[in-house]
């Protein structure tokens, strides 16, 4: 899939597998060789009596032993991705599961099945699967493997097993409720810091997302006016003789700058906007993960409190508490490790995205500069020719 323009590799010296048919995707986890390559493409519309929906082709190439084959091709719809995400959250409540594109986009007023919407969603789904594949723990998740390899009917029957949607929702509700009840009393400082960080980060990333959209809108408005500006000079040149060439030259320069502006806009919408949006979603996910950790801890805390007031059955309680203590320690460690990893990636993503934005702007200005400089050169050549001919007697 060569149409996707991903950010530059964070580790420039990493060799890219020549046999890989996928676009260059940055290596998140250091110099390990990737053994799982996933692409999402080819959206197709399906119309049944009840509904219309889109499926995407998911192609997996792998050299891993636990996969029966080295290549898989399946079709998945958005619902299937939602299922996968909720399974991952269930299995790893304190790991940072990558964001999925939203169900609907309210503000853009984009039609549900417009080409633009589908393409944006496709890219986001592709990103999602690749982020999961790059995650040291999630990549080995069983449901993930089934998602990538099972045929449609196999997946359906597998989905029917396991806890129902309602019970999953219950988990999140309880988590939110416990945080509403006043949060956790003994939240370790590290996680308190994480919470503070996430609150600020979430604010800032949302503002950045808005700013980026504003910039895109302003550039588009500018482009629309510029489109009209060049042709007026051409029109004028039709009623002039001596300055017709200069006018046509200016018209051509303006038109070229106009095209350059279009490229700049495209760069924004392909790169900065999706990344910022992804991190807006990430900030919500992270707040959720922190809450779930808090909830696991509050389970332990309430049991400890209960023990303190109990006189009998102390042994039973101690065993339970021991288990809960392990659970908390596991959750904390998992979150800590994933948090560090997430921060590293975030920095990497931000660095390359904003560098890319700067690069786009540089290219834009350099193109425009070249255009105007060559126009200027052509005009001053004429002037010199005129001056020379005037000097001669």
């Amino acid at each position, binding site marked *: 899939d060569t149409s996707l323009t991903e950010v530059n590799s964070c580790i420039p010296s990493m060799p890219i597998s020549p046999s890989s048919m996928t676009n260059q995707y940055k290596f998140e986890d250091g110099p390990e060789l990737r053994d799982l390559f996933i692409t999402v493409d080819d959206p197709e519309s399906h119309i049944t009596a009840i509904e219309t929906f889109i499926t995407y082709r998911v192609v997996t190439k792998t050299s891993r032993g636990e996969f029966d084959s080295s290549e898989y091709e399946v079709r998945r719809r958005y619902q299937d991705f939602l299922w996968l995400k909720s399974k991952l959250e269930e299995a790893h409540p304190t790991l940072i599961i990558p964001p999925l594109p939203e169900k609907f986009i309210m503000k853009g007023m984009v039609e549900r099945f417009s080409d633009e919407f589908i393409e944006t969603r496709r890219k986001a789904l592709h990103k999602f699967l690749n982020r999961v594949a790059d995650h040291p723990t999630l990549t080995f998740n069983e449901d993930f493997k089934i998602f990538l390899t099972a045929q449609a009917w196999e997946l359906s029957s597998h989905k029917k097993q396991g806890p129902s949607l309602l019970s999953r929702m219950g988990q999140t509700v309880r988590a939110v409720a416990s945080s509403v009840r006043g949060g956790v009393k003994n939240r370790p400082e590290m996680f308190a810091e994480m919470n503070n960080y996430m609150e600020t980060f979430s604010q800032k990333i949302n503002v*950045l997302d808005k700013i980026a959209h504003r*910039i895109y809108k302003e550039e588009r408005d*500018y482009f629309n*006016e510029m489109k009209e500006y060049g042709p007026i000079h051409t*029109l004028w040149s039709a*009623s002039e003789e*001596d*300055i017709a060439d200069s006018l046509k030259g200016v018209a051509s320069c303006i038109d070229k700058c106009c095209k350059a502006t279009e490229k700049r806009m495209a760069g924004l919408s392909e790169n900065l906007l999706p990344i910022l949006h992804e991190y807006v979603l990430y900030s919500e996910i992270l707040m959720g993960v922190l809450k779930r950790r808090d909830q696991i801890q509050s389970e332990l805390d309430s049991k400890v409190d209960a023990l303190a007031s109990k006189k009998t059955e102390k042994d039973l309680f101690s065993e339970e508490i021991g288990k809960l203590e392990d659970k908390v320690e596991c959750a904390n460690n998992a979150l800590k490790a994933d948090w560090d990893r997430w921060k590293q990636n975030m*920095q990497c993503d931000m660095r390359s995205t904003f560098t890319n934005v700067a690069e786009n702007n540089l290219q834009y200005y350099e193109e425009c500069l070249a255009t*105007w400089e060559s126009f200027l050169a052509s005009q001053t050549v004429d002037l010199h020719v005129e001056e020379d001919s005037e000097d001669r007697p």
Partner: protein
Amino acid sequence: MEDCLAKKMEITVSEAEKRTGRNAMNMQETYTAYLIETRSVESQSEGQCVPVDSLWRRYSEFELLRNYLSVTYPHIVVPPLPEKRADFVWHKLSADNMDPDFVERRRIGLENFLLRVASHPVLCQDKIFYSFLTQEGGWKEMVNETGFQLKADSRLKALNATFRVKNPDKRFTELKHYSDELQCVISHLLRVRARVADRLYGVYKVHGNYGRVFSEWSAIEKEMGDGLQSAGHHMDVYAASIDDILEEEEHYADQLKEYLFYAEALRAVCRKHELMQYDLEMAAQDLTSKKQQCEELATGTVRTFSLKGMTSKLFGQETPEQREAKIKVLEEQIQEGEEQLKSKNLEGRDFVKSAWADIERFKEQKNHDLKEALISYAVMQISMCKKGIQVWTNAKECFSKM
């Protein structure tokens, strides 16, 4: 341009001042006065320190001067004044006549007007113009005493002539079309330019929002903090840079506006030609009909319908003496008419000749000025691109260090 005033005298409009006074209806008004400074060039070259003469004039006096020149020299493409009210304004610019930026640009425009008149081979020799520059008191009275307002052609007469003239000089017809096209295309260009400027302003200013957010974000980041902070600073620089860029572009717009108004001056010359031509045609027509009348009276045949002819048929013929008297009167009128026609023809030819000479001069000036304006526009764009490259190069470096 051998002996034009501009070569002998340095002319500047160096200052603008807000004044309050009472107008004709004794109501308080605020207006701007402009300081015109003049200095003889010749004595300067001898190494002497020459004092500067100066006087204050307001815009309405400039208008009076220009009206005088237009009426007195109808065959000349008279340089236009800068606009009375701010037009083609984009949102950030004020449309207020008292706005300091507008006043400053108008000061430059008025100076330009005076220099154009002073370098014109015909106009620079005008005494009223000279007094405008040098005589503070009593100038208005002097102008009014020339009685130029009486010489002015009524707009209605001119409009009538435009529609009824039969054989205008083809070159003037073409020139009229050209001036219409020029006016149309320049005003369209200025309107779109104002909208483009507005949008460009929006793009730059919105980037300024990055600065504050980056700064706040950098507070919670350990490794990325410095990069974000310094990048934010560059975004502020970028956002601020548009103000100077667009101010410079406003001068370019003024250069185009001058020629927008020059188109009107061209039209005025064409109108004058049409008027003179129409006058000539009417005089010729009148002469022909008088000659015909004379012939009819002399030979007794009625070839053309005339009320007199009908009434005489109805109420009886006139006496031979009456007829003789009439013929005499007509013959006198015919002679007068023929002389008038001759002089009108001469006038017309002279007008066409001298007007066309000035139009050729104007065309050369226009081509030169507009080409220079386009070049200066390119220079401005280049400067804007270079600034952009610098800012984004700096920003890129900061981002890559995050």
